[in-house]
């Protein structure tokens, strides 16, 4: 008996130690360890029709599938396939014990009310263990807007549980040679709804979103040399920045209607802040060697970039206020393509080694906690965070041609994001 007690005591101590080590990672309200290893078991039983059940059948079945698909995409949740009936919509009517026994931590109830063409949907997220309501939303609209309502609820769930915003409304820009030449394309967060933004069949690359998601910037060789094109997605109008013979890697600057880009004005390609009319506002990084690929923290206070000033391409961070510059990558002879997480707590980048091609890494802005996310899977480049900071999209040649993949920010669930598009895809940019 004593032995068992002792063993149990040691086990508890060890577990406590481990939890101390991991505490202080990114604050995710609900779970503090890698949440993707221990996914939240959740049940979404069939929706309940409050009235006009006959005409609601399809909406409810499709809706149930769609909500599961959305939550599944985030990789935070796992679903059991039992189709148990709910019993009611509100907490007082639900038998939480039943769901707890089935292994669920959470439960979602959805009620639908149809009157003519007007649909009302009521969503509730429950904590099964605490028997509490966590999120409650009611939406009203036309019957064909059911998916919009479901997306809004899913966003509310993500926002409430994980302090995260806007994943389901977000979109991606990317480059594809699908049509011959390289052009810029647009799609939804889940890789659906692909449509073409440029159709020049020339070379259009390096797309970038403005912070209000209304403008894009990219590099195009349409006029026989690389120039930066700035375009409003709604209005179709825009600007062209053409200084000298090199205008590349445009990135919007947080809080300002201007661009950081790389230009060759003197001896080397350097990073400058320029207005959309092409006026040089400030030199951001320059000097000996190549400086390229600016990426800003969301508050605009710091800029990550690639520089060869130390002899090989490495990631540096510049503090915009005091102009101090610090190198953060020291392992590997070739580190490029930095992308700042929206939380400001991580930077993802692509590092090339002799043995394993190019892989995606994560590193803290102070250069600590370096993690390798891809291994032994071809070349993996161009990492970019989702606007909620939970996912990373990247291009990978693991299946032959370059395709856009997505994974959790810890490297789990690496899967193809953009399907059904032939050719090579690269340089994804995620909206803010």
């Amino acid at each position: 008996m004593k032995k068992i007690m002792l063993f149990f005591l040691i086990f508890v101590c060890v577990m406590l130690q481990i939890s101390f080590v991991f505490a202080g990672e990114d604050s995710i309200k609900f779970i503090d360890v890698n949440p993707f290893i221990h996914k939240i078991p959740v049940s979404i039983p069939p929706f309940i029709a409050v009235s006009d059940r006959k005409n609601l059948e399809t909406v409810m079945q499709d809706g149930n599938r769609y909500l599961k698909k959305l939550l599944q995409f985030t990789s935070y949740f796992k679903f059991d396939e039992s189709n148990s009936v709910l019993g009611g919509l509100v907490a007082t009517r639900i038998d939480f014990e039943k769901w707890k026994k089935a292994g669920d931590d959470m439960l979602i109830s959805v009620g639908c009310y149809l009157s003519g063409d007007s649909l009302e949907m009521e969503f509730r997220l429950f904590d099964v263990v605490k028997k509490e309501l966590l999120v409650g939303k009611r939406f009203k609209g036309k019957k064909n807007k059911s998916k919009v309502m479901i997306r809004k609820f899913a966003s509310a769930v993500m926002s409430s549980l994980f302090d995260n915003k806007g994943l389901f409304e977000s979109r991606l820009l990317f480059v594809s040679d699908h049509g011959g030449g390289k052009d810029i394309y647009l799609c939804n967060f889940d890789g659906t709804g692909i449509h073409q933004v440029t159709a020049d069949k020339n070379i259009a690359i390096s797309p970038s979103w403005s912070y209000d998601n209304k403008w894009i910037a990219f590099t195009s060789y349409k006029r026989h040399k690389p120039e930066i094109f700035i375009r409003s997605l709604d209005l179709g109008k825009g600007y062209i920045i053409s200084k000298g013979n090199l205008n590349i890697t445009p990135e919007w600057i947080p809080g300002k209607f201007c661009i950081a880009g790389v230009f060759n004005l003197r001896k080397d390609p350097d990073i400058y802040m320029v207005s959309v009319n092409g006026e040089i506002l400030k030199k951001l990084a320059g000097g000996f060697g190549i400086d390229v690929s600016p990426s800003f923290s969301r508050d605009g206070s710091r800029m990550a970039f690639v520089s060869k000033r130390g002899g090989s391409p490495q990631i540096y961070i510049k503090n915009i206020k005091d102009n101090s510059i610090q190198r953060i990558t020291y392992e590997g002879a070739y580190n490029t393509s930095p992308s700042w997480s929206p939380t400001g707590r991580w930077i993802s980048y692509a590092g090339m080694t002799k043995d394993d091609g190019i892989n995606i890494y994560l590193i803290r802005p102070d250069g600590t906690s370096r993690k390798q996310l891809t291994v032994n899977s071809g070349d993996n480049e161009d990492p970019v965070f989702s606007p909620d900071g939970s996912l990373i999209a990247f291009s990978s040649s693991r299946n032959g041609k370059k395709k856009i993949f997505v994974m959790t920010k810890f490297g789990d669930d690496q899967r193809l994001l953009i399907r059904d598009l032939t050719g090579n895809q690269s340089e994804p940019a995620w909206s803010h």
Partner: protein
Amino acid sequence: MIKRFSKIIIVGSVLFSLFLFGCAQKKVNTSDEQPKDNQAVQSATDNQKTKDAKAEEAVKAEELAKQKKLEQEKKEAELKKQEEERQKKEAKAKFQNEKVFFAFDSAELNEDAQKILENKAEWLRQNEDAKITIEGNCDERGTTAYNLALGERRAESAKKYLVALGINGDRIVTISYGEEKPAVIGSGKAVWAKNRRDEFIINSGL
């Protein structure tokens, strides 16, 4: 009556012929002495004839030789011209086709590169009106952005060297294509080495 008449005619024509013959002879013999006998006259005439013929032939031969010489010279000049044109074409093709290659992640010019650029400078001196573009390229590894910058440096590196060799910088435009325009599609060291290059394009002037 008729017999007497014909006799007169015959004698008359003979006398007339003799008279004519005598005159003719006199003409030929411009030299002072009267020909003593026909044979001597004959051979002298023949000699003269041969001499003249020979002289004519000589003149003709000279003329012919001259013509031949002229033709020859013309041919040679033609060949020379063709050869020159061929060399010019070759030099131009060489200028356009000969590329400068680089080591991984480098824009430095090794010895081979420098030699090639020296040849190109020579061509540019011979063709003063020519303007060119240098296109900088990279292999497929590494990020698009970084490779665009590296390609630019490779193009600028070659331009700088040409300028140092005396070529006016205004004649040279640089452009980077990064990894976007490989010469050879594929992977592996051999392919990559062929793609890390500067290409030289003649814009105008020829």
